């Protein structure tokens, strides 16, 4: 298959690669540029483990071709903080024990990063609705809901 050149930005850094047009964005992130924090749980758009923020909105990287992401700006879990300095959403997850095996966690955190920017998240029902595009098999969601409630409160009403 003929390869094509793409250039995109991930966590503020620019990458140019020759890729097959059929390469999934999730595989691009994980295999081409070695950012394995974005996980793949289903490859059919249901579980949300592969969620990244693409040009400011959350997107399923398993349903996006890397070639479609040409020229975009992507944020992944690695861009939000690191082991000695967690980002705010990451910290809230830790405080509220919003993770167990950690496999779904990057996807949740990226989805929530987007939600906090765009959704009211004023009631638990709204929060649960917002989280319902991601599957976590470990936590039963309650601790994640608690973390998001705190984050939404801290953020205040959407402008």
């Amino acid at each position, binding site marked *: 298959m003929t390869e094509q050149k793409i250039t995109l930005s991930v966590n503020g850094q620019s990458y140019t690669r020759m890729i097959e047009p059929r390469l999934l964005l999730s595989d691009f992130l994980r295999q081409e540029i070695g950012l394995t924090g974005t996980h793949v749980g289903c490859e059919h758009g249901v579980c949300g483990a592969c969620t990244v923020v693409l040009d400011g909105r959350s997107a399923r990287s398993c349903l996006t071709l890397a070639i479609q992401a040409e020229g975009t700006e992507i944020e992944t879990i690695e861009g939000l903080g690191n082991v000695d300095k967690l980002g705010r959403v990451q910290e809230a997850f830790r405080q509220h024990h919003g993770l167990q095996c950690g496999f779904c966690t990057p996807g949740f955190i990226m989805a929530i990063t987007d939600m906090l920017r765009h959704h009211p998240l004023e009631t638990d029902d709204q929060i649960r*609705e917002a989280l319902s595009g991601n599957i976590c098999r470990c936590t039963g969601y309650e601790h994640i809901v608690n973390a998001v409630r705190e984050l939404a409160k801290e953020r205040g009403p959407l402008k």
Partner: protein
Amino acid sequence: MSHNDHSVELRPKLVGERVKRTEDPRFLTGVGRYVDDMSPAGMLHVALRRSDQPHARIIGIDVGEAFSVPGVVAIYDASDLDKDVKPAIPTSRMPGYYATPIWPLARGKVRYVGEPVVAIVAESRYAAEDALEHINIEYEPLPFAIRQVDAVKDDAPLLHEEAGTNTIIRREFKRGDVDTAFENAPVTVKGRFRMTRKTAVAMENRSYLAEWDQRKQSLTLHTSSGSPGIIRDVLSGCLDLPGTRLRVIAPDVGGSFGAKGSLYSEEMLVCILARKLARPVKYVSDRLEDLSGTSQAFDELIEAELAVTQDGTLIGLRADVIGDVGAYSIYPWTAALETVQVVSFLPGPYRMEHYRGRIRGVLTPKPPTGPYRGVGRPSSTFAMERLIEMAARKIGMDPVEFRRRNLVRAEEFPYRTASGIIWDKSAFQECLQGACDFVDYPNLVRERDAARKAGRWVGIGLASYAELTGIGSRISVAPGMPINTGTETSRIEIDATGAITAAFGLSSHGQGLETTLAQVIVDELGCKLEDIEVKHGDSSLVPMSSGTYASRSAVLGGGAATLAARVVKAKVLRAAAYLMEQSIEDLDIYDGIIASRNSNQTLTLKEVASAVYTQMGRIPRDQREDLTASETYDPYLGTACSSTHLTMVEVDTETYGVRILRYVVAEDCGKIINPMIVDGQVHGAVAQGIGAALLEEIVHDDQGQVVTASLADYLVPVATSVPNIGIVHIEADLPNNVGGFRGMGEGGTIGAPAAVANAVSDALSHLGVSVETLPVTPERIFQMLRDTNTPRSANST
């Protein structure tokens, strides 16, 4: 008591604290290392051509143009691997049992849709999958019986001819004279309960990476397993490699729930191929393969009948169960694990004299069943707790009062159940009371009644159960199984820098063992939490381990950690006593500092370590001992973990969708190491139980094809499917094991299906239906209502 003693007592302990998890930062920042995150140089990828037939003879395999796909390195079927591997045999001492051999690829026949037949190895997964399309397998279809009720019949087509039967498991438990008890029983209720097939759906799919070291002729398998020690031990035999040349590592693992604790064909396969090709070989399952190839769960048909007196005392229980074990008996648990537990736990936490429970485990052309959170007991609790509520309703007694009369009481422990399980003292009655108090039960009943008056379909349901956890060597986790599940080892070392390594053969795949085991060690040893590194999930750490499953790691791992920490502490104190010229009795360690009650002099652990290992001459040669210990703990028996779940649900009168309005779990899990983690385990397990009750079902059609092959078809709970869960921890007598811990990782999945089934039945009671099949989906409710209404309308016309 001296002043000093008193201050020692008051020192804060970490066991019991909501300590934030030490493993979290790497997961939260995307630098956890799961198997699929590893890509050693030269790595090859495997894609599998799987059977599309439920039962067929393989006539021929044509690889066509597969090798023309760029990047394809090799293609194998079973005949190519014959000399490279011996099968794994899941042996058991069960009478009449047949151990189906487990091979990496199907040989001669396929026995379920999804069974691996051909392996393609290529430079990328994309290339390997491209090549799959070129493979043609010619099959001769063979007759099959897809449903257990058919497969169990004498004339049913045989899946494994060598077995001579499809019924490879038969077991009966009995006590008393159950048939006579039923003859004279004033009240009986019965049902035909069916817990349909489920699967674990760990968010990380099964992933394996094998590396062959040509120089040392040794193999390392990185596996998403919950039981790396078991995998090492069995592969050692299959591959004929001693443990020194075979290492099995479970790095970060994205959930297991039991399903990743068995040996898989693909695990064998990557090892064989890595050795054959002398290159790293990786296989990562996709979700379709997971839903059609990972071990599945439950799938029992339980015909059960309960006899009670008019005043609500249990007399006897009899049950006939057919378990659908799928196409193979899984290694090492065997097909007996799930099936036999259904009948051994069926009598539940109740006092009852007469019992007979029979199980037949039957082979069908479906993926094998294996351990899934709760094992057997979600099914048995569902059946028993439905019978309990049916009986209470029949005699007009409140179901709480009915349970109160029959749950084993404090003074009756240890209680031997009708199937021979011994319940040590646990808070059976107190859990029931605790759940009722939490929701103000009388008030909740009034709420329900008021809602019903307003035309809403609202119901309350309970489930009480006990499980045996932290099982020692006296009891086999699965009957007659050849592996030891009764011990665990902890090796603790203080090195020359004063840092502490605690190594376990257990593995953590979400349980937070790096934190909880460190908490236990801090309290025993007197060190700082941050000075401990907990290592786990690696077969090279301790001589033998069977891993994390069956609610055992807190009890066995915590117990072993306690014993090893005590030995190391004694060694530290002996060295410090010499260095400080104090007597050992006057010394204590806290926060990594050794202090004497008779002087102001202190030493740090680091200083002691340095004196022991580095500064020769400070401690005389004959008194110097390494600050290390390896201890194995065997709790011998197991301990009961008991619980009551209580829920209120509403069934939508239009859509028949079920919404959970209230949910509470009251449980006695002994001493709690970390309440935050325990709560998380309960939430997660209850969510899985709610999934089993309302959503989850693996469906095979009459042709043996799985029709629930994506997460859009196999529905697991999302955030809107589960409520907030109230949790009541009952503080009762601690069990008689080293740490006072009881296992609790599975309980939620055991109680929730029954509680929800009871609540939905209560909500629909005025319509004359009773939930006997789970999940109780809107479609099933529709059918039940139609079926009960049909005769009525037939009469009226």
